[in-house]
């Protein structure tokens, strides 16, 4: 026993010493190189960790590869589920021999065989567990070991068949468990009954459930794949139709009320929030004011251009507009009448004073207005003012204007 432990330690020590090379061999075949690498390969070959394949090429032994695959959940593409048929045949043979030994009373051989049967049963359990782990890793990992979609689909089909085979094998395990359970009671070997029940019997239902879960995922994937294939084919067919029927735009089809709603393209429902200027919330009001301040100044409204329209006669009768003369115009009018009736000159200043309504009009304004109005009436205007002391005055000052009918007009 001691020697065995030492051997395992030596094996592990060699593996640990060349762990880099072992890891490399797990990924793929390794070849020799420098002296150190060749020595490492020789040592690993010596403990059967590496197996020669071709000249100078070595593979990791299948036992180690399987162990790493299970522990690291790293499987290569299309990795088959391990068949348990062989192990089942072995366990069944051991069980039958055990029954024979029991009947013969060979207790010593029985103990050895019990131990072997126990190992076989444990192996069967381990293999089923490993198969389920492989399936889950592959299925849930979307077959990450390949990139091609078609290869993924082929793996889906492959594992769908593998699950079927695995479920059939579980049925064989079930019948073996039943056989051992019944036989152990009959032959008086309760330990064997306990062993198969604990290791296999109680696990059968959970195993079957897990396999069926994986089967369901695979089936769904296959359905989705078929659906996807169908869709891609549709896409290709309609694209091809569009290319080869350039004179056609579409089809006349009828649609029923219970049609798939997905057929009808969504139409947006316009929803535009308006600012609520009566909102009592101070924050909202502050924001409204802030936004309003940023608005550009309002443009002055341009006068509406009247459209070109045909002119229309709205009324044929001429309207008489009566103009009410202002006070100063009345005063001028009466002055004209007075001048027509008399010859004596009239002082404009004195004339203004006769009209109280002209009191608000400054005399200077009156004189200028009256002179400009009377200048065209062929009247004589005489500016009454102080005599100027300057020899050549620029402006002659006056304080009144006397108006008289021109001499020739009366005659």
């Amino acid at each position: 026993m001691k020697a065995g432990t030492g051997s395992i330690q030596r094996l592990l020590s060699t593996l640990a010493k060349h762990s880099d090379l072992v890891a490399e061999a797990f990924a793929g075949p390794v070849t020799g190189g420098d002296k150190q690498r060749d020595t490492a390969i020789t040592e690993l070959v010596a403990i059967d960790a590496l197996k020669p394949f071709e000249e100078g090429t070595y593979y990791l032994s299948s036992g180690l590869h399987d162990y790493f695959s299970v522990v690291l959940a790293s499987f290569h593409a299309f990795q088959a589920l391990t068949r348990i048929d062989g192990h089942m045949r072995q366990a069944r043979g051991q069980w039958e021999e055990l029954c024979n030994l029991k009947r013969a009373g060979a207790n010593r051989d029985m103990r050895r065989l019990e131990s072997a049967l126990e190992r076989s049963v444990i192996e069967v359990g381990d293999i089923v567990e490993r198969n389920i782990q492989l399936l889950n890793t592959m299925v849930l990992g979307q077959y990450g070991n390949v990139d091609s979609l078609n290869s993924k689909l082929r793996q889906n089909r492959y594992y769908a068949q593998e699950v079927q085979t695995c479920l059939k094998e579980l049925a064989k395990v079930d019948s073996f468990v039943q056989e051992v359970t019944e036989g152990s009671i009959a032959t008086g070997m309760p330990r064997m009954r306990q062993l198969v029940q604990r290791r296999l019997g109680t696990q059968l239902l959970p195993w079957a459930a897990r396999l069926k879960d994986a089967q369901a995922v695979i089936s769904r994937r296959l359905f989705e794949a078929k659906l996807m294939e169908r869709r891609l084919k549709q896409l290709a067919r309609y694209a091809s139709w569009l290319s080869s029927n350039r004179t056609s735009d579409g089809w006349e089809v009828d649609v029923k009320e219970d049609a798939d709603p997905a057929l009808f393209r969504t139409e947006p429902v316009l929803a535009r929030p308006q600012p609520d200027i009566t909102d009592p919330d101070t924050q909202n009001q502050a924001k409204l004011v802030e936004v309003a301040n940023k608005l550009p100044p309002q443009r002055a409204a341009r006068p509406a251009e009247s459209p070109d329209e045909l002119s229309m006669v709205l009324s044929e009768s001429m309207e008489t507009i009566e103009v009410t003369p202002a006070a100063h115009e009345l005063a001028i009018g009466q002055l004209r009448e007075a001048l027509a009736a008399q010859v004596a000159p009239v002082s404009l200043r004195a004339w203004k004073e006769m009209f109280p309504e002209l009191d608000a009009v400054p005399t200077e304004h009156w004189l200028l207005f009256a002179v400009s109005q009377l200048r065209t009436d062929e009247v004589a205007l005489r500016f009454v003012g102080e005599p100027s002391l300057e020899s050549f005055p620029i402006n002659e000052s006056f304080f009144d204007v006397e108006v008289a009918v021109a001499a020739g007009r009366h005659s």
Partner: protein
Amino acid sequence: MNASVLQLLLAGEYLCNVRYPNEYKALESEAAREQVNAWLRHINMRLARIGTSGAWFMTADKVTDRIATKFKSEMRDFRDVYGPAVRMLDFIRQTNPENPHCSPGERIQLVELEQLVYGSTTLSAQLRSLIDVIHNGNSRVTDRENLRRLLEHLRKDGYVQLVDAGTESYVVTGKIEQLYAVLTFLDENKAIEEGEADDQLDLTDGIEGEMRAEP
């Protein structure tokens, strides 16, 4: 109630887990869907979904005459309404039949498309035949630029979403399933006979496959 869900539904968007993951997740709850439905019923609308696991969208409570008429009109004008998307997506499918990138969640990289088109004179010619379909497509610009415009066209139509501007990577959105729903409807109504386009299709794909196989 998630306000952005309502706003997007009112805006006529398709809420898929690619384009609107948060809103899509919010609608996973039955209670949330019921609330949204209760709200939409006030405006004679309801929540609907493409297929059983597709994008959520707002649809009318019932198919009215106006909606039916509009749909019939869209089918009559299929070339203008759905034709551009069908032709452009089919072009993307043909660039890489092994990995067609025409399902929600699939990633399309401009550089990858460019390499595939660069390696095939057939694809390049086909891209040029789409110039009248691609928005701003131009025969005087490079294939890369036309491919970029093609993807941008699909993005504006909501079929893909730009997820990384740096690498110009796009992801197909759930809206594409609406297009497939229409194609399925047309198939059910035998718009085109099965064999009518298939013969040509097999021929095209066969030639394309051979072209790609050439070194």
